């Protein structure tokens, strides 16, 4: 751990600077007068650039590289805007945009089905439900306690320790991890190994892999969701007559 820190001062510095900038941007208890946003923005930008520089270039092709930075950078910026916006509706919208950018990254890694499914589930259903609840709850404008973030210091500390841990784990595998090519997908899943007529990212391969190699995980997740929805119906308040 200490060794990693000594070897990667750039990554650590980037993380710390970014966290400080984010902390500045967080909407605190000062609802009436806002802090100027510029210092926070500059700090976050510098931190993100430092962290990116320390990670190295992942994509060889030019178009890939442009798209990677577009989607990756877009999701980071949208994420920051999501947690720093005062208005919950805007927060939900930035969340939707961050999800869309992440789906762009999935597409770049040849996972179109995952991308489309994420758009349907997150952008199309979960965030729409968020917006529904926000509209239902705050018809007369946001109240003061909804405009500030609570426990921002602890939250930022925890999330950046997690981010640092992930960065450390990725970098400890080698400075420049080889991108996985279509013909050498991780073996051990006999049905998921890509072949010439069934390259990575095709729906057929995905289905075979999900309902072959990972059948138990899929069934387990399905059962869990079923239990959760039955539970939700069970604890929902009920009236004598009819529905809610």
């Amino acid at each position: 751990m200490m060794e990693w820190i000594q070897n990667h001062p750039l990554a650590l510095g980037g993380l710390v600077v970014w966290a400080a900038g984010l902390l500045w941007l967080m909407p605190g208890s000062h609802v009436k007068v806002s802090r100027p946003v510029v210092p926070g923005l500059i700090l976050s930008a510098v931190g993100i650039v430092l962290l990116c520089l320390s990670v190295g270039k992942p994509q060889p092709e030019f178009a890939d590289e442009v798209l990677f930075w577009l989607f990756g950078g877009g999701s980071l910026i949208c994420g920051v805007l999501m947690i720093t916006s005062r208005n919950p509706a805007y927060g939900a919208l930035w969340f939707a945009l961050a999800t869309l950018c992440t789906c762009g990254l999935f597409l770049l890694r040849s996972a179109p089905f995952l991308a489309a499914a994420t758009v349907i589930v997150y952008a199309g259903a979960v965030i729409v439900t968020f917006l529904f609840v926000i509209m239902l709850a705050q018809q007369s404008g946001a109240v003061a306690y909804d405009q500030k973030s609570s426990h921002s210091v602890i939250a930022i500390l925890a999330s950046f320790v997690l981010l640092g841990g992930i960065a450390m784990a990725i970098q400890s595998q080698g400075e420049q991890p080889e991108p996985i090519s279509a013909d050498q997908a991780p073996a051990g899943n006999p049905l998921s190994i890509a072949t010439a007529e069934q390259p990575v990212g095709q729906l057929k391969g995905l289905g075979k892999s999900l309902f072959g190699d990972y059948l138990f995980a899929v069934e387990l997740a399905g059962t869990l969701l079923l239990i959760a929805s039955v539970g939700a119906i069970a604890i929902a308040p009920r009236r004598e007559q009819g529905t809610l």
Partner: protein
Amino acid sequence: MSELLITLLTIGLVVAAIPGVCNYLILLERKMAAWMQDRVGPNRVGPYGLFQPLADGLKLLLKEEVIPKHVDRTLFVLAPMISVFTTILALAVVPFGPVEDAPSWLRFIIAPGIDIGLVFIFAITSLAVYGIILGGWSSNNKYSALGSMRASAQVVSYEIPLGMSVVGIALLSGTLNLENILTQQAQGGILAWNIWVQPLACLLFFTSSLAEANRLPFDLAECEQELVGGWHTEYSALKWALFFLGEYTHVITISFLTSIVFFGGWHFPGIAEPDSAYMFAWLVKLLVLLTKVFICILLIMMLRWTIPRFRFDQLMELAWKVMIPLGLVNVVMVMFVQQFQLSRLWLVAGSVSIFAAWGFLSATAKRAHLSGGKKRPATHTTGHGHGAHAAGHGAGGH
């Protein structure tokens, strides 16, 4: 010609054609409305009112754009753009002609060979509701907020039967690629059209797509009698028009999907077969597909003046208590037939009997509900039903 040039040409063609087509569809809708209500309809501008859409378009362009002071400006301007952008983007994977037989300078699909075509369309059209939600929320108006709340609940609910209805098709044809689904039906002849084996799925698909597009009888989000204009109350001029451009584009997409997925696309026995080799066969196939789409659009327009608008609880119960269970039963039936290698004729019998059984069940439940309701206070018999109410509607109304 280079691939890039053809792609740009196709995109240009689609984007340029959509507003014009929508304009004339609106004229057609007004004429249909007039015909069904025994009126004359628009007939002042040009012969038979044929220039009415041009006059309307010009009016919408030149009208004053009012942005009220109390709105959230960014989202207010953004909402109509999202509405149009998402609906047009969904057309990218829809083949609007015979893709294999297209002349060299034209391609009948913007993005060919997309493996997840249908899922892509559902993903993009599920984003279209953001236009309505943001428009209603940013208007800062009670009616608009109510309209967009209705829209969000409605779209989230109807996405489930919509997705469920094509699972059967995906299982039967083994692909989600629209071009492949079309080719399989064309090669099998008229009896291979998916409508014969999946009639119930077709009904569910068509109904829930109408709900996704906010068309009558599912237009509770704009419901003029209760909500002034619903989510577009504060909109005027071209921004208002953009919302409706989005809605009509959605109608076109639905019609294309219904014709392609269930009615064989450009295939028609005798005149447009996969091995037709006469001159301009591609033109005939294109016309066959467009005719099917046109019939579908006419049906949607006639539905508008035939079925009255649902009440909101009926709408929700139709989705959750009728269409989702029916969709699930349909999927289980297809899985059963596929697993045991049964004849596909079982699917026909199965679909019809499931539909009949559901109708019988809901009619019985409705009768029990009504006779049991006598003991209760009178207010409860009309209010929130136990599913029997909406179930009766679902079975009887469609």
